[in-house]
């Protein structure tokens, strides 16, 4: 399977085509074609994962494969074994003597992502069968989901950066189609376009980064690039330039500050799509890029030397900025969206501080609990009158127990409560940040942990506790919806075990972390005080938040505080307006370009450039008229015509002399006599 990894993206792609072409006729069963395809992909991915694990174990000489999992023994080898990724490629295009391939590059990271993406996609598609039932474009929706999955899988298995770019852009296209799924409403299509354009702005960076890397390395290949970046002769400045450019791409795609604004708007799409975008596809593509080409960043940003770097800084800022905004949202999906921004910040920060395995681990666990939370929110909305406004929810704990409990698990996992999945991954990020000498980011991470726990408490409280404030009769959702919730809930509980250091399990490090063309990164040992500290912070945050909203149950939200203090009111407004970044982008930049600049350019075009053209044309015409009228008609042709014409004219002129008045004749007579005399006089004298 490692050699045939191309099958994994191909199956959903085929499903896309089949559904697109024949879906209309098949009706509802079209959904199951997509599900079948992605399920097959999932199975293939699992096979690939097992094969990869065996390959690693074979190389390191550890005992056979999965058996190691049960032993619970740390198998550390002092000898550094290199497990080469499995690459396959065929010619895709060529230039000069060089041929460029398209193919697959399978290593630990790839198989991890394959499993996560196919699994989440599978669950989301199953969930969607119920959630999207009766939708106007049911089959189209499943076709798009299949394409979305296929694109993300293409990106994941990409053998070279161009292929990665292709997958990257296709993911953007699919998110565009799915966010704008209900395009009849202008807000939805606007959100879709915003998402597309924002990520595409980031793609300028990605594109240029790829180009810089190509000319630095001499190849688009992922392996070649990483090998070059880890090598001794690497050109640091060019790597830095490439890393900065790629980082711009990550910022755009992974919703990092300051290009995160499209992500909350993307909630306009159907909820399962949000789950897919936030958990497994689209936004994690950025983090995946960071992990895939990690040596470029590691070397370019000099991560090994500690201090502050661009990547960690962006991640750190995004953690706090996203988390703070989550507090002022009424829409439960937007709370989760900002939460995603914040969590992606963790991942990017982890990469920035040298904690590669922690970042990938967090990506892994986050995929499950974030998908769970989104699907849970969808389930809530499905039964609570099709709204996502938390002001119209409340007290849903009793009518929807499964949703409530799974949502609670997801929230706790997100908040980093021991022993759920989120705890392990977040803790590892924090520990490694501290150990690698990034103490400032450790503190940022702890602040983020506090905020995360608090806003999730708020969301859970407003949704499930207190009195029901909405309309209708809430009820538990059907099996197709709760089934995926339960599966994801279980994963949110248990997925952390894969890299639970105290248990002696560091499988991410052992199996996933590349050994081929990878920088030497440290791995901090599990740190009990820090773990206790972070869990403690989260618990305190939950307590504080729960107390606050319990007290203010009859006065929801922060209205009390904002009414008392103008400073708080200003801050609140600042937050509600999302730091005014949207205004900057939409009104100033986009509005400016689309309005003033574009119109000015067009005016320039029509009046100046076209004016010159028309002026030249008109001038030539004038010249032609002049030539024709004066030169040709008057002078050349006129020589003939004009003689006759002049005679005629002269007659007409002379006729005027014939006034019939004697004195006029006399005047002419005497004048003529004078002139003749003068003439005679002059001819005689001179």
């Amino acid at each position: 399977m490692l050699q045939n990894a191309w099958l994994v993206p191909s199956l959903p792609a085929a499903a896309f085509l089949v559904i697109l072409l024949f879906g209309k006729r098949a009706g509802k069963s079209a959904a199951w074609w997509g599900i079948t395809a992605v399920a097959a992909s999932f199975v293939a991915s699992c096979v690939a994962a097992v094969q990869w694990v065996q390959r690693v174990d074979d190389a390191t000489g550890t005992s056979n494969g999965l058996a190691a999992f049960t032993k619970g023994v740390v198998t550390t080898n002092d000898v550094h074994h290199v497990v080469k990724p499995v690459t396959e490629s065929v010619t895709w295009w060529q230039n000069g003597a060089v041929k460029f391939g398209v193919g697959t590059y399978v290593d630990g990271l790839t198989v991890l992502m394959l499993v996560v993406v196919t699994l989440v996609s599978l669950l989301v598609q199953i969930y969607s069968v119920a959630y999207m039932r009766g939708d106007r474009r049911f089959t189209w929706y499943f076709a798009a989901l299949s394409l979305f999955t296929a694109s993300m899988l293409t990106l994941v298995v990409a053998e070279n950066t161009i292929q990665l770019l292709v997958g990257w852009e296709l993911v953007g296209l699919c998110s565009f189609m799915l966010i704008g799924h209900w395009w009849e409403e202008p807000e939805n299509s606007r959100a879709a376009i915003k998402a597309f354009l924002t990520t595409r702005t980031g793609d300028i960076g990605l594109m240029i980064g790829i180009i810089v890397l190509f000319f630095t390395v001499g190849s688009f290949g992922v392996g070649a690039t990483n090998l070059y970046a880890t090598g001794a002769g690497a050109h640091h400045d060019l790597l830095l330039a490439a890393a900065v450019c790629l980082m711009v791409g990550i910022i755009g795609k992974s919703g990092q500050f300051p290009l995160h604004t499209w992500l909350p708007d993307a909630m306009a799409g159907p909820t399962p799509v949000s789950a897919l975008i936030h958990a497994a596809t689209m936004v994690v593509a950025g983090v995946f890029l960071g992990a895939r080409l990690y040596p470029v960043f590691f070397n370019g940003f000099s991560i090994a030397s500690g201090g502050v770097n661009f990547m960690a800084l962006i991640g750190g800022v995004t953690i706090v900025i996203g988390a703070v905004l989550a507090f002022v949202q009424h829409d439960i999906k937007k709370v989760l969206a900002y939460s995603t921004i914040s969590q992606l910040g963790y991942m990017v920060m982890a990469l920035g501080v040298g904690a590669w395995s922690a970042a990938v681990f967090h990506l892994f666990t986050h995929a499950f609990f974030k998908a769970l939370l989104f699907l849970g929110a969808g389930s809530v909305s499905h039964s609570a009158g099709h709204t996502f406004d938390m002001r119209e929810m409340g007290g849903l704990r009793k009518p929807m127990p499964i949703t409530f409990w799974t949502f609670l698990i997801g929230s706790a996992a997100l908040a980093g409560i021991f022993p759920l999945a989120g705890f392990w991954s977040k803790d590892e990020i924090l520990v490694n940040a501290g150990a690698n000498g990034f103490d400032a980011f450790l503190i940022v991470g702890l602040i983020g942990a506090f905020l995360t726990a608090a806003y999730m408490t708020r969301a859970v409280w407003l949704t499930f506790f207190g009195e029901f404030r909405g309309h209708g009769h809430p009820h538990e959702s059907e099996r197709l919806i709760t089934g995926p919730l339960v599966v994801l809930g279980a994963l949110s509980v248990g997925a952390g075990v894969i890299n639970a250091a105290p248990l002696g399990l560091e499988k991410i490090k052992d199996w996933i972390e590349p050994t081929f063309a990878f920088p030497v990164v440290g791995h901090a040992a599990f740190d009990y005080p820090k773990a206790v500290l972070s869990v403690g912070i989260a618990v305190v945050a939950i307590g504080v938040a729960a107390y606050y909203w319990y007290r203010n149950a009859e006065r929801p939200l922060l209205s009390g505080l904002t009414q008392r203090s103008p400073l708080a009111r200003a801050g609140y407004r600042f937050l509600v307006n999302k730091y005014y970044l949207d205004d900057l982008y939409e009104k100033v930049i986009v509005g400016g370009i689309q309005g003033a600049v574009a119109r000015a350019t067009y005016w320039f075009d029509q009046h100046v450039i076209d004016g010159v053209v028309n002026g030249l044309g008109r001038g030539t015409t004038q010249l032609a008229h002049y030539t024709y009228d004066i030169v040709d008609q008057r002078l050349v042709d006129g020589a003939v015509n004009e003689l006759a014409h002049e005679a005629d004219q002269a007659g007409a002129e002379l006729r005027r002399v014939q006034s019939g008045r004697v004195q006029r004749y006399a005047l002419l007579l005497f004048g003529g006599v004078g002139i003749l005399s003068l003439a005679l006089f002059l001819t005689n004298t001179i």
Partner: protein
Amino acid sequence: MQWFDDSALTLAAFIPLVGLALVLLIPGAKEQAIKVTALVASVAAALVGVGILADFDYSHAGRLQFTIDKPWISVIKARYHMGIDGIALPLLILSMLMVVACVIYSWNHFPEPHSPKGFLALILLLEVGMNGTFIAQDLILFFVFFELVLLPMFFMIGVWGGPNRQYAAIKFFLFTLFGSALMLVSFLAIFFLSKHQTFQMNELAQLGGAGIAHGTQVLVFGGLFLGFAIKVPMFPFHTWLPDAHTEAPTVGSVLLAAILLKLGTYGFIRIALPILPSAARTWAPYIGLLAVIGIIYGALCCLAQRDMKRLIAFSSVAHMGFVMLGIATLTSFGLNAAVFGMVAHGLITGMLFFIAGSVQERYGTREMRRLGGMLTQIPRLGWILGFCVMASLGLPGLAGFWGEFPAILSAYSPARLAPGLLNGDHLLTFRIFMVVAAIGTVLAAGYLLSMYQRVAFGSVGAEFESAHVHDVHVPEWVAWTPLLLLITALGVYPNLLFHMSNGAVTNVSRIFGG
């Protein structure tokens, strides 16, 4: 198959002429017979194209194949010299394909004042000129075909065009004629200055401007530049384009965008660069500058448009900017990108013009403010438009990407150029161009998506709510399907085209050490 090798290109160029003669012989009242004749002629030409495609030796794509070389006008040493290589082949095929598509598309709806006889005759005449230009290997022959194209397009715009057609037609005609006049002067200059006094492109390319002083070369190149740049069109010679497109009938717009614009860029690659290489080195930074200005400028003008067709016309300015940027780098990356970009732009923009024409035909307007909700009312056309929009904005996986990305890529590292712009630091210059061009891709996404949003998304306006609007009908399907398939195929597997163009392109780029 020796006879085919010898006569294929003559057939390719002149089968449409035979078709034209037949069409003219049939009385105008027998419309069906005229249509069938025209279709048969264009398909026959296309079949010759398929034969060439099958018989072409791809492993020697850089060599001229199917050559015919006979004396023609011996007094001025002009020869009937034709041949085809990896650069010309895709364009020739594109031209044949588009003509067939246009004939089929027009099947049941000829623009006013109807008259299928005249219209199809002009299309066939246009095909003679277009095919001939791509295969001519003699400068005079090239010039004859290059100019032959003007006439039918002039009448097509002037007779079957929109309300302001006469202005547009005359502007188009004069503008391009002005350029070709200078081009002809340059051809003559090349003839008299070159050692052997010849019009044969391959001989001239072998000489590579030897014996012509650099200053003279630069001047002669200037003439060629004007002739070709107007045709492309490059900023600031583009103003005829929006008017011509806006007024031209659908099929005219399609052929104009898909093929006629390519004559200019093809001229650069085929004639200007190999024959006058040292002047090309001097000119390249300025061409690059105009190209990136065109990219941004065209995009901004697009954002200000209300008329869908005019928007697409301006988008051509931007897209051809990418092609010209690729050419200006003088590298194999850039030239490959340019060839790919030409074909991709021909397919995609041709499709967009087809769709704009269909929208106009259905709704009677192209004003984007009045349109909307096309996806609800005529979903198939809406989706096809969406597909083409995505292809046009350079989405990877579709053809447009492979014209844009390598062009941007090539700007990172252009060939060795003569000093000029920015104190001669052309490396920095072109890297700035690269970033600007990359920004251009975002603007492209911006204007295309906002067009799509206005036209396809949302709900149908009250004006057309109750109108009975037909979705894509049969002639449209038949005409469009090959184009759509090609857009996808080239996007998924670009080597289809790169393996044709690469060999020929390296011949050119080798001159510049790339």
